[in-house]
């Protein structure tokens, strides 16, 4: 089977452009605004305060007072995080629509076309993505959507890291260490 590597590279470039435009839209709608920057600053201040309070936590003495303070700060961080999620809702919706349009546009051209050969046989959940829209029984045939998803993941992570668009990291919840003080 002849696979045109140029087509595969075109998908990668398409993903790069789509993600770049999406992040630009997010920056224009959300990240450049003063109230968003102020919100990030407030969250970072609260997180720093939380981490300092956690470090100085003494289990035997004044535990209830410190636990109460930590619970208050945690509640404040969660409230600010909720506010941030709400602010980013419009840009997230715009980026989602852009991604759908891009994937459909690429899909119209690449449907049924094998764009790469995988060096492993994917397990059944991954097959739904890697073998999407392809005929034939060879599960190492790769469709455009898998290449697009991998490329989008790579470019999104890097663009957000380079341009500081990741947002503040929470000390708890996904992506952060879990607080051990309040475990039962």
């Amino acid at each position, binding site marked *: 089977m002849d696979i045109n590597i140029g087509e595969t590279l075109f998908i990668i470039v398409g993903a790069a452009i789509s993600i770049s435009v999406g992040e630009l839209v997010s920056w224009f709608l959300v990240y450049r605004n003063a109230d968003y920057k102020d919100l990030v600053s407030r969250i970072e201040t609260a997180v720093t305060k939380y981490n300092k309070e956690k470090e100085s936590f003494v289990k035997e003495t004044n535990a209830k007072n410190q636990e109460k303070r930590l619970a208050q700060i945690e509640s404040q961080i969660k409230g600010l995080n909720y506010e941030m999620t709400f602010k980013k809702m419009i840009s997230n919706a715009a980026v989602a629509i852009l991604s759908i349009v891009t994937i459909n546009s690429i899909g119209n051209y690449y449907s049924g076309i094998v764009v790469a050969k995988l060096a492993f046989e994917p397990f059944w959940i991954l097959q739904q993505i890697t073998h999407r829209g392809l005929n034939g029984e060879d599960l190492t045939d790769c469709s455009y959507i898998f290449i697009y998803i991998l490329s989008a993941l790579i470019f999104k*992570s890097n663009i957000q890291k380079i341009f500081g668009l990741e947002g503040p990291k929470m000390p708890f919840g996904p992506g952060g260490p879990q607080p051990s003080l309040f475990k039962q």
Partner: protein
Amino acid sequence: MPLKKEGFQSVGEFLSFSLSTDDQASSDQIKTALFFVRQIVSVLLGLAAGFLHLQGILTILGFLFLSMGFSYYYVFKYKQVDEDKIENTEIYTEGLGASVGEFLLTWTLIHTVA
């Protein structure tokens, strides 16, 4: 430049920091350096896996093992960071998604062409 937020004034300074063994750096600076260095290593491992015609899920597991091992070595042995300064889960998860994506993409492209 957003990297200034983590104390880097230029790309050159960031590069020299990544290669130095400065143990006075903040955890954010270390994680940022690890993020990019790990991706370079992932691309190299993907190229190696492709040119060596490695196949199968074991290759992916081997990559994960090497990637995490490299992260531990880079932070705690090469940069000699104190183990109390940064948690193991943070160094193992920093840039994991992007590095796995780059490994799979590079490996697949080389395997397709070769």
